[in-house]
């Protein structure tokens, strides 16, 4: 059973469209991170959110941490082909700071 549930599993959109990826759990996390992974490479950290209700923006990417610190979302505005990749959310459970719990990922494909 996945501690973090990501949805959708796969998303295919045209360049210029917007998209949102969701990450949900019944557990509370001390912090939550979003990574992007491209084929043959390790995940690359995009952002860390630590405060309930926090919103962070990274150019066209907007990340939100739920008030109860159990869920998060990633919104991409005007997607570009370079946004293609596997997006992973990962959280630190409050009593185990060393271990990251990962979601199964959302594969995003942006076509020109």
């Amino acid at each position, binding site marked *: 059973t*996945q501690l*973090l549930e*990501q949805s959708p599993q796969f998303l295919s959109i045209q360049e210029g469209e917007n998209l949102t990826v969701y990450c949900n759990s019944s557990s509370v996390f*001390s*912090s939550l*991170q979003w*990574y992007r992974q491209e084929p*043959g*490479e*390790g*995940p*690359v*950290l995009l952002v*860390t959110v*630590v405060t309930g209700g926090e919103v962070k923006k990274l150019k066209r990417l907007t990340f939100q941490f739920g008030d109860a610190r159990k869920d998060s979302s990633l919104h991409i505005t005007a997607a570009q082909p370079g946004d293609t990749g596997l997006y*992973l959310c*990962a959280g*630190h459970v409050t009593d*185990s*700071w*060393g*271990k*990251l*719990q*990962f*979601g*199964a*990922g959302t*594969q995003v494909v942006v076509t020109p």
Partner: protein
Amino acid sequence: GAGVSQSPSNKVTEKGKDVELRCDPISGHTALYWYRQSLGQGLEFLIYFQGNSAPDKSGLPSDRFSAERTGGSVSTLTIQRTQQEDSAVYLCASSPKGLAGTYEQYFGPGTRLTVT
């Protein structure tokens, strides 16, 4: 500066053989993590080191899996008597002790293990 490196990048082995996978973390990072990723899946936590000790080994799938870290730097993940279900990409990450408990992790490119 140099990132996390892993070797080999690819390893094909016969069922029943032992394999060793190596991870060189970012210099100065005290924490080191091993994960396993099956095709199209998220990452499965295996083990975590703080310095040379492993406070959390809870993710190791069986006693065929072991890992060590020496000098607070290089780590080796050893899989004995490999099975076909061990085929996956093995990822290593390192982390400085972050502020406010964030503990951001930096990943290597992974070792793709194929057991035939």
